[in-house]
């Protein structure tokens, strides 16, 4: 299986008056189409910055090296307009807090169609049709009327579904999801995770799924990588990492999970954590 997104020995440091502070120290990851690559770790481990760097949105003052291959394009080498052609069109992104990621003063329709019209050169009517299709697909009923409404008129879960539709509207092959369920209630979480999984399977998406929540991770990821202090300390298929963690750090993360017995999880625990979607 060939990887759609391949991160190769990515390092990133932030430059200030004291020199360069290393944030990422040689990250390598492969994400294949139809697969969810989980990226776990505590806050500050560098997992979110990894996702942002794929989007070309690393923090100001960053110094990077390595490669981020999207098929045969090195995203790390792209600038300006070329980068904009990739963003939204070939890589989409979903953010943590859906109430913050939608512009409060713009209608949902406007935010769902502007990049579609720009990237796919669609007319307004065609873009609107596409937006309607997407809304239906992410489970928001109501058709065109919904497009005229503003973000604050929706619940948190609905907003995240809209954000997912926004990220996927131009049919990118890769999706970066940065803690997409963290800000949601547990019951709503399960629904959004189920939606994501379904989209991955039907659209054959390659997803980089960043989260600190191993419960969520076990529910959606095919492969899991665990980050600590800017490095990947452990990576592998979900079952392997969860049931038989090789690294002490992974074990301590798992031990801190509620319901973990003796530091390790059984398959039954995994199913429980998965939340029965």
């Amino acid at each position, binding site marked *: 299986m060939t990887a759609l997104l391949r991160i190769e020995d990515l390092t990133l440091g932030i430059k200030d*008056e*004291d*020199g360069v*502070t290393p944030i990422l120290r040689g990250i390598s990851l492969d994400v294949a189409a139809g697969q969810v690559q989980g990226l776990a770790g505590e806050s500050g481990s560098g997992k979110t910055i990894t996702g942002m760097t794929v989007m070309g949105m690393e923090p100001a003052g960053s110094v990077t090296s390595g490669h981020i291959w999207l098929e045969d394009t090195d995203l790390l080498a792209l600038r300006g307009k070329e980068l904009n052609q990739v963003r939204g069109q070939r890589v989409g992104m979903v953010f943590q807090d859906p109430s913050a990621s939608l512009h409060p003063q713009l209608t949902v329709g406007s935010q769902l169609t502007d990049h579609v019209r720009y990237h796919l050169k669609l007319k307004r009517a065609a873009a609107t049709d596409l937006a309607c299709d997407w809304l239906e697909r992410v489970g928001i009923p109501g058709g065109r009327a919904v497009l005229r409404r503003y973000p604050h008129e929706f619940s948190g879960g609905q907003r995240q579904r809209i954000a997912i539709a926004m990220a996927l509207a131009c049919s990118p092959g890769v999706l970066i999801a940065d803690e997409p369920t963290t800000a949601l209630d547990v019951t709503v979480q399960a629904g959004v995770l189920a939606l994501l999984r379904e989209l991955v399977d039907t659209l054959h998406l390659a997803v980089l799924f960043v989260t600190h929540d191993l419960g969520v991770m076990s529910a959606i990821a095919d492969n899991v990588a665990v980050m600590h202090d800017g490095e990947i300390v452990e990576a592998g298929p979900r079952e392997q990492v969860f049931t038989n963690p090789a690294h002490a750090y992974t074990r301590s993360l798992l031990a801190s999970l509620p319901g973990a017995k003796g530091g390790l999880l059984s398959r039954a625990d995994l199913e429980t954590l998965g939340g029965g979607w």
Partner: protein
Amino acid sequence: MAETRRSLPSRIWRAIPPGIRAPLGVVSAVIALVWVVLCLIGPQITPHDPLAQNLPLYQPPGVDTLLGTDELGRDVFSRILAGAQVTVGLALLLVVMSMVVGSVLGVVAGFFGRWVDEAIMRFTDLVMAFPTVILAMVTAAALGASLFNAVLAALIVSWPPYARVVRSMVLSLRHQEYVASGRLLGFSPLKSIGVDILPNVAGPTLVMASADIGTAALLLSGLSFLGLGAKPPSPEWGAMVSSAVRHFDKWWMGVFPGLAILTVVICFNFLGDALRDYFDPKGATR
């Protein structure tokens, strides 16, 4: 990493907010310090008597009279040095007074809430709705032109921002657990304010005050410029600019006192900004 070993001077240096460590910050800090020192010793080190009318009139800037002389034969340079005490000193006084008055009202409003809060905040709104300069002007005119009255007048328009900010800080503190638990332990309101609230409010308020010194100097010199502050012989900078208006061709009479005000205001504004950015990156006290 590189944090391991640093000399003591280097560690002290690094404890200073970055904005002030930057070249412009250092320059501002030095100039501000010079003005504050002059505020203390200025009148003692003037080359000429700032009030004596014993020099040739309208002398352009030269060797003996560095910044020239005015229409009464007084040395402009000496007057500026002596005037630091008036303008800078009173600006500092005004800021401290506004801070105290505003904070007391803000704490009382925020802590006691209900009608006390309502009454104080409506009064604050009232003062803020009043045009600042005009209110200060009316007060100064009504009280009679004197420096002290100018400070009083300026105080009347300067306290409301403190009251508002302090009140909103107290409101958010009041619901913090440790404040509530202090009350449950039987702290009197006064003790609760003193122990749990004031220490937390003090920092941001001081930062806000430091950014306000420049504004205070501008307001006071503006009142003096209008003839509502310092009385004629006093070497107040605003009053000096004012008397220069009638002697247009003698540019040095007005330019230098104005530059003195400008440097004071810029320095304190700059330092205030740097402090605020450092302690309060989100700008809550703005």
